[in-house]
């Protein structure tokens, strides 16, 4: 049995910080691509909303915080909002696929540590392209592994519905909320961490292990999780920060109307700054995962003999 070098959470965080600060341009580029993808959906939203509501002043009132007007708009034009939800889901699904390429590129950069903008771009593009298909297979495995997560979530939500029906205070709500959601959340963290480490190993070991496949790295990643719980804690901390940031942002932003063009631009800038922070955090996590994966012993290599080829 191999002995792994102990790697602490702080070391993973430092690796993340180092990766993000060293490849700031890549972080920004990935973010800009994400922004463009989101705004591609946004332009569809704009067109649909402007067509449906451009001549309906009640929509303006609803957007500006009048609850009754908002309810009227939603209940009287359900089909419009139904369509927008499908556009949103489609955009998110497209991004998931596109992320296979981007993640491959990011992991390749963190693995190869290229110098200079040109070399970084080359490593990014080559990494993303070379692992795209195998990441696609990992994506399918991820969907399969998420099925139990959804089942557990379904049970949790059923339990939560029963409990919330009778809860009187915030205090009485927190216990059931944690019991209902924590198992699914922890399972999700476990699955997503397994997939993350499978990707990292694929990128790290591909040059020397060409035959390394999606199923094999996934199985190895599951074993790794049990030997190195710090990998799970690392991702768990990321999700906690992600959720906290988002909730705090929504909380602070509630009830603040945009005042004119300047206000709208300011709100846009603040929103995107917050999204950029979350994006950078995600890349920092990937950098930490590469650091930890590098401490893993490589998988055994399969030597093809002349006889077996015959």
């Amino acid at each position, binding site marked *: 049995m191999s002995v792994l070098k102990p790697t602490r959470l702080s070391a993973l965080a430092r690796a993340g910080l180092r990766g993000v600060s060293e490849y700031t341009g890549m972080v920004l580029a990935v973010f800009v691509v994400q922004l463009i993808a*989101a705004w591609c959906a946004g332009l569809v939203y704009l067109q649909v909303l402007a067509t449906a509501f451009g001549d309906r002043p009640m929509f303006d009132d609803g957007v*500006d915080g009048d609850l*009754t007007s908002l309810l009227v708009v939603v209940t009287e034009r359900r089909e419009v909002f139904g369509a927008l939800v499908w556009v949103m889901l489609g955009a998110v699904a497209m991004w998931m696929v596109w992320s296979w390429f981007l993640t491959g590129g990011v992991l390749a950069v963190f693995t190869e540590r290229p110098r200079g903008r040109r070399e970084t771009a080359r490593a990014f593009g080559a990494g993303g392209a070379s692992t795209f298909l195998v990441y696609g297979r990992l994506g399918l495995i991820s969907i399969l592994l998420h099925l139990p997560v959804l089942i557990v979530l379904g049970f949790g939500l059923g339990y939560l519905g029963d409990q919330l029906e009778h809860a009187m205070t915030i205090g009485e709500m927190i216990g059931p909320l944690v019991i209902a959601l924590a198992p699914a959340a922890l399972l999700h963290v476990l699955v997503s961490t397994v997939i993350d480490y499978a990707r990292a190993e694929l990128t790290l070991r591909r040059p020397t292990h060409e035959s390394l496949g999606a199923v094999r790295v996934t199985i190895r990643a599951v074993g790794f999780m049990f030997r190195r719980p710090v990998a799970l804690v690392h991702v768990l901390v990321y999700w906690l920060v992600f959720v906290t940031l*988002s909730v705090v942002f929504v909380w602070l932003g509630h009830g603040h109307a945009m005042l004119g063009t300047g206000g709208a631009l300011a709100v846009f800038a603040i929103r995107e700054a917050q999204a950029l922070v979350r*994006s950078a955090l995600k890349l920092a996590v990937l950098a930490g995962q590469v650091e930890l994966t590098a401490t893993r012993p490589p998988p055994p290599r399969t030597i093809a003999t002349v006889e077996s080829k015959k």
Partner: protein
Amino acid sequence: MSRWLPLVVCALAVWGSACGSDLGPPRQRPAPAVDGRPALRVPGQRSPRIASYAITAKYDATAHRLEATQTLTWKNTGGSAVSDLPFHLYLNGFKNEASLFMTSSHGAHRGEVARDGSWGWIDVASIKLGGAELRTRATFQGPDETVLSVPLPAPVEPGASVELTMTFTSQLPEVFARTGYKGAFTMVGQWFPKIGVRLGAPGFERWHCPPFHLHTEFFADFGTYDVTLTVPDTHVVAATGVLTEAKDNGDRTRTLRYRAEDVHDFAWMIDPYMQMMSGQADVAGGPVEVRVYYRPRQVDFAKRHLAAGIGAIETFSKLFVPYPWSIMTVIDPPPDAGGAAGMEYPTLVTTGGDSVLMRPGIRVPELVTIHEIGHNWFQGLLASNEFEEAWMDEGVNEYADGVVMAALYGEKQSAIDWMGWKAEAFRVKRAATGALGGLPSPIATAAYAFPDFDTYAAVTYEKTARTLRTLENVVGRDRFAAAMRSYAETWQFKHPTGADFMASLSAGVGEDLSWFFGPALYGTGAVDYAIRTAACRAQHAPRGVFGEGTSRRTVGSDQSPDTGSWVCELVIVNRGTTPVPVDIELRFADGTHDRVHWDARDGARWHRFEMARSSQIVEVSIDPDGEVLLADHVLDDRLRLSPDKHASWRATARMTWWTQSLMQVVGL
């Protein structure tokens, strides 16, 4: 981490269950003090007191069963002799799956479901009249056992009375529809044989005593109730009327005696864990004590119910007629007894809406309390027929609730005032419920004749409330309030019908309102305005060819240039069936506003406005003040002639951020 996880989960589970219903075994409680006040604040007979009951009952808290004897004194106030007496046996609606109530409800009522095996029934063992046993001659009438008809040995002549003594056993079901038990909590309603009501012109009266149906509630004559209850001394009891006697029996039971006057029902609650808080409502003629009974973990909601209850008693009293009784009792059932929540009885109501999601400012608990207390006017005092004209109590009361909430909390935030969100009760309910035109039944439909519960609820409650609010705004709020007050003063302690209500309001406002009531109450449509045409053209003297022969001349744009003014045309249509006068606000390009009025009382389906203005119309708003609550599809009632994308941009920015956040969750 892995070692601690199970412990954390267990701790949370224990915490969750500790927050539940572990209240310990019931403990003996001291006997309650008698109320020491008359049932009516101003003593004296207020109603005809046709049906009066003296009931003695013993409650078995383990079996949820009552053994009781009642003496009914029934007075024939009609013009014809009566040879039989029909009784409602409502509890038999829960007796088996063959009852009309169960077949019409499929064992479910407003989201609560009957538990299999938990049947309720009432068994009348004896009916005696002057020593003669009549039970053997009594027969069930109708499709089930919820109506028992008792033939009399001799007719009761007009002006005469009859006194019947009945012995019965009442088995309560697990509560899913108003009455029954859940755990240690028990709400006891519709538990005794209740005589029907004689209706009709003098000399031609007939009994009204239909079987118990899912959608119907209750209808009975006024009278007095003298009720003696023997219950475990560990339990708290709250009941209709006032407590006149309380004594411990020395056998772990207690006997409580209640008296209620000029009411048409008697209900009570029993529970070993309830606490009580009270306050005082200031009403003309003397104070009313408002009591709220609640389990300890519901104390925060009890405070809200008490404040709403006091406000409701005071405001309903000012708007209509003063609350005549001494006490109003509000029961806040435990959350798992939701089937008992939100029900009205004379001087006692059950409330609801207690939930962690109902933060202060989201006034659902207050609304439930106000609605149920409001029923003490609309059905308690103005005792309309809930079987045949449910809109008379549910709908009129729903309207009154909106008025009362606006008076208590301010119109703009009468329903919601939470985290910056504000909503007015009538409008937010309309927004949430949506269009009502086109529902298959008109408002004036017997409760049992609706095709389903959703239609019954939307039409009876919501459409009636919107109809009355619309009419109030048409005739003017002060005039309408005076008419409603007059209706209440005239018909309190009586059985008004829909026709009485309409006649009373017409007389009150000094105008025949049949142009409105006809389509609004008897039609299935509503109001549905839309802007058919809104356009302006440049104004100039007529152009073209004028005259003939040598005098023919052509006038072109050079000879007849635009004056700089505009001729604007506006066509408003009502795609609904109820005509309602309405204001239309026009906004012009130069920033000015103007209002025009369409008095649609003649039943016209459309109206054309033409006007000359110095500027073009840029926006049209039908009913800019939102006074026509009966209007459907209100999104179409405001139109901007040139589309504007600013709001769409703002909404897009927000939605795009959410999209981006989701992208970050599933991908890079």
